[in-house]
């Protein structure tokens, strides 16, 4: 028996289903019933029920790409704030190899980097790395902070949402899995992108978002509204658990 529908909003303690279903993230089992432990939207995949929180903090996971800010320079590593309860470290050896160089000449406190989470150990020490395509230091642009669970929605199915923003505003956009977004382009376009991204965050749990985003973009850019295209039969819903990141 299932008591709720897919994408329904639930609050902690709501009974979702009985034990013919499996308990996924954001749920717990009590007296053979699956209950929600969060405020969020239900996601039913086959027989697995999970709850996607409306708001969350980023919990580092190996393999994620994140945007981090340098907060401290130590003897052989940089400390980074990755918009998470846990701070990250970037070992100097990862940047220099075996060579010995001055750390603060390469990256200084306040720099913003695009990194990959190399490892998270059992005490949540987050090791970061810069090896990979597109990783490195950002210059200019603006930063926008959104809730990490909304990242897949911002990217859209196969990058549909984010590509639309990129094409319309002619901005470079990089999304970190930790909810930090970097945008660079014409200053006015950066502001347009910022507004759109904030709107997406606000309305991420509603349907028909892609159309509204398109309309908002056209409105902000002062363009003609697109002629009524044949409506998509169903709102493109992304697999929220495995939102793909975008690397430039």
């Amino acid at each position, binding site marked *: 028996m299932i008591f709720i529908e897919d994408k329904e909003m639930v609050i902690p303690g709501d009974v979702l289903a009985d034990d013919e279903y499996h308990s996924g993230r954001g749920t717990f089992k009590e007296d053979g019933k699956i209950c929600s432990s969060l405020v969020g939207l239900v996601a039913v995949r086959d027989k697995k029920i999970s709850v996607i929180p409306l708001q969350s903090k980023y919990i580092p996971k190996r393999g994620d790409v994140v945007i981090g800010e340098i907060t401290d320079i130590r003897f052989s590593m940089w400390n980074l704030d990755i918009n998470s309860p846990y701070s990250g470290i970037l070992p100097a050896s990862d940047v220099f190899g075996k060579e010995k160089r001055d750390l603060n000449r390469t990256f200084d406190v306040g*720099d913003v980097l695009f990194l990959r989470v190399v490892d998270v150990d059992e005490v949540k020490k987050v090791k970061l790395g810069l090896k990979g395509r597109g990783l490195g230091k950002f210059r*200019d642009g603006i*930063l926008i902070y959104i809730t990490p669970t909304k990242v897949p929605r911002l990217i859209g199915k196969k990058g549909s949402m984010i590509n639309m923003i990129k094409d319309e505003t002619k901005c470079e956009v990089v999304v970190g899995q930790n909810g930090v977004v970097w945008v660079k382009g014409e*200053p006015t376009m950066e502001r347009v992108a910022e507004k759109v991204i904030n709107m997406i965050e606000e309305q991420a749990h509603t349907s028909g978002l892609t159309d509204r985003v398109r309309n908002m973009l056209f409105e902000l850019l002062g363009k003609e509204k697109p002629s009524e295209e044949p409506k998509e039969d169903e709102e493109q819903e992304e697999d929220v658990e495995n939102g793909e990141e975008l690397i430039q």
Partner: protein
Amino acid sequence: MVIIIPEIIKESVTNLMKNGERSDDRGFDDYREISLETGVIKKAEGSARVKIGNTQIMVGTKPQIGEPFSDTPNVGVLMTNSELIPMAAPDFEPGPPDERSVELARVTDRCMREAGVLDLEKLAIVEGEKVWMIFLDLHILDYDGNLMDAAVLGSMAAIMDTKIPETRVEGDEIIIDREKMIPLPIKEKALMCTFAKIGGELVVDPSLEEEQILDARISIGMREDGSICAMQKGGMKPLTKDEIIKAVSRTQKITKNLMEHLPHN
């Protein structure tokens, strides 16, 4: 906890300012949305809750009868205290008041006192022995920049909202008539206006983001007639004489609009 602002945020905000824009689309002389409620705390004799954007302060006043200071035996006492509660911002910590808390209380106190908002002499009951002491408590509920303007606006509203019981002296006794509550003796109205200097431009009502990257900050307290009653400078860099003069003349215009938010009576 030290908050580090990424270099690129600093640059983007500064560049916007140089083009005459702000990151939240406000003009240089615009405040964020202000809302003010009075009489929100039942247990206090006067109270106000002020919001400037997402900055939120609760102000309460508590009158008490006490002994005056020996150097000013015939005037009442006004005391201001502020509390930066840890819920309001990640870098507000529990424990003894930090620099910002002390500064906020002192600047607010200075603005109210030097403006002569209260006629303190009328608060004396028995000269040298008993006077009214007005305690003004600022509770910062949410911090999103520009605490000072919010604190002064809230304090002003709370003082205007305050009612104290009437007192009279009969023989050796002081009779407190709680049936008959009278408003505090208000002489003046004063408000404060804070400017942040970012990229050579002066902007009013700095948001948290702007406050974290500002070069210099100046707060100007002004009476209703446009005379200055308090001033406080902050930030690491200097301000030129020209900038200060300009800030004062802008304050004169801005405080006039701010006064509209105070309750009319």
